[in-house]
Every structure is written in C-alpha cells, then in structure tokens.
C-alpha cells in the first residue's frame, strides 16, 4: 500500500497528527506484519492495539483455550468463547471489527519444531511480540528472532512485577550485538520463584505492560523508537519504573557473533 484512502485519512488522523509519524509512519504501520506468540493477557491486548492502529498482517499463536478465569483481564474474549482456542477466537473477533485484515491463527504450542513453519509465514521485517507465560517458550522465541534477525518485543508480568524490552537483531551497531538477547538476561537454567497462576495478577497491570509492548512495536515500525536494549521493570504496587541497559553475555551460545561461533566450533 502506497497511499491512504480518504477513510483511512480520517480513521488514523490522530496518529498522523504526531509530527514524527505523519502519513509515512501510518503507511509503515499499514504495510507492517507482526507475530504475536501467546494470546493471553498480554497478547490479546497487543493484538487489539496493533489491529486498531492499522497493522494488516498478523500471525497469532496460542494453543490454549479460553477459560472463565481469563475473562477479567483478557478483554477480547467473552463467556461464550470459553473452551475455544484463543488464537482462533481472536482471529474471528478482530477480523469482524477491522476491514482488510489478514490474520493467520496457529493453534499449536510454539517450540523449536514451530520455527520452520513460522519462518515460511514471515518477512525479513516482521516484528515478533513475545506474550507467552513460560520461560521455555521465551527462550525458543528468542532463538528464532536471533537466527532470523528479527525485532523482538518482549513483555512479562507476574503479581505486581512487569518487565519489558525490545531488541532489534537486524540492525546492530557496527554489525555487533552489544545488547545481548533474552538468554543473556535469563540463562536456560532460570526458574521462577512462583508462576503467574500461583502468584495472581491485576488485569490493568497486565494491560499496562501490553500497552507498552504495543507502543514499542508501533514506534519501531514507524522508526521513532530509540530504546533498544533497555530493560524496563514496572512495579505495579509502588508504581515505579526502573531502567537498565541490557548487555551481552560473552558465553551466550544463542547470540554469539557468527565469526566467534565458527572459531569455537573449530576448537
């Protein structure tokens, strides 16, 4: 798409009024493609924001079904959706609300076995949103993004603690990854003190993290994002935000530089 229709001018006028977005930014959004893995509390809201903002190509991945306990925070789903697959329900509902939208629903768990299938569905600038609820999936998504040189927008929340970051594996300073990857931050042997289902969570706190994730992604698509490699932590009780610069683990075997990997393989 190279031009906006009259209706689109009106529809997206508030976004385009932002000086650094304008028509070019809105066109970038309309021409973008995204993958959202995990269609729970985070993913369902990210999907709604992106679709409403004009993203027309979405791949939604989730093998879970809608449950009664999801409804207070997963506002895309209603009680008649209980028992149905989340990705499929999201595809149906978003397709009904937004015209000219192309949604692919993948209803299987995301593992290393999913990588070839997903690789066939994406482009070189597809943005990946990690909205999953477990560490193994997060490692698998991270490896996929590193290997395919994609942009990863990752968020997580349990109880009152949310975390968020965006890493662009396609565009790195001097071709070198200084910021690391998810595995540099949380190595494979990381485990959680308690899971989300044990700790509980406030719906609006999930919404804060999902909104930030959508904001990061849209700013990246519009080329106005300037916080790659910054880890944000949100304390939903004290309402404080903390920032930290991410850094690469020199021993990480996922984002190791190709020439170093080759050297190590030879040893």
């Amino acid at each position, binding site marked *: 798409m190279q031009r906006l229709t009259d209706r689109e001018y009106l529809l997206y006028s508030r976004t385009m009024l932002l000086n650094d977005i304008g028509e070019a930014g809105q066109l970038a959004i309309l021409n973008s493609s995204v993958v959202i893995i995990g269609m729970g509390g985070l993913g369902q809201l990210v999907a709604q924001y992106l679709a409403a903002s004009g993203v027309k190509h979405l791949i939604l991945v989730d093998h879970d079904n809608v449950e009664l306990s999801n409804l207070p925070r997963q506002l895309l789903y209603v009680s008649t959706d209980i028992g149905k697959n989340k990705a499929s329900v999201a595809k149906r509902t978003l397709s009904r609300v937004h015209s000219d939208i192309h949604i692919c629903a993948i209803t299987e768990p995301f593992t290393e076995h999913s990588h070839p299938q997903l690789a066939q569905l994406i482009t070189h600038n597809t943005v990946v949103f990690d909205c999953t609820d477990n560490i193994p999936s997060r490692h698998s998504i991270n490896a996929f993004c590193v290997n395919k040189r994609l942009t990863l927008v990752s968020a997580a929340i349990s109880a009152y603690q949310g975390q968020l970051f965006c890493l662009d594996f396609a565009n790195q300073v001097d071709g070198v990854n200084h910021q690391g990857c998810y595995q540099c*931050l949380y190595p494979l042997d990381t485990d959680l003190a308690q899971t989300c289902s044990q700790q509980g969570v406030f719906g609006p706190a999930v919404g804060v993290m999902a909104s930030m994730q959508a904001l990061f992604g849209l700013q990246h698509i519009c080329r106005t994002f300037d916080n790659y490699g910054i880890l944000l932590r949100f304390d939903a009780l004290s309402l404080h935000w903390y920032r930290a610069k991410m850094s690469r683990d020199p021993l990480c075997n996922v984002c190791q530089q190709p020439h170093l990997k080759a050297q190590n393989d030879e040893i």
Partner: protein
Amino acid sequence: MRSSHNSTTINVTINGKAESILNNITVSELLILKEIPQQHVAIVVNDTVVPRSRWNNIVCQHNDNINVFSAVAGG
C-alpha cells in the same frame, strides 16, 4: 572499577536501600549472603545488567547501585 577502599565494609545501595556489605565480595557471594537464589534473578549494577556468567568475577564496589530483578514470565 575497583576502588582503593580499605575498610572491611563498603556502602552500596541494594534495591534502593543503603546498606553496608563486606568489602571484596563478588555479586555471587552477595546473593548467597542475601539468600537470593541465583536462578531466580537478573542483577543490575549501576544501571547495566550483569550477565550471570560474570557474577563470580564482578566484585562489588563502594557506592555501587545494585538492583535485583526477579525473573517473571507470566503473560
């Protein structure tokens, strides 16, 4: 950077709270003293994440600002 601090304790900030800790201890040793399981957290020193593989090598310094980020994965 290692300071030339010679006393037996140094002053650091941990999760926003001023504390005195033993001089010349590593990040790993600090976590053991604080009874924080290493597999549950990321460590931020002076606003930069320190990868876990470096925790045995990084010695806490006077006036370091240390933040412990608990791993979360819920969505």
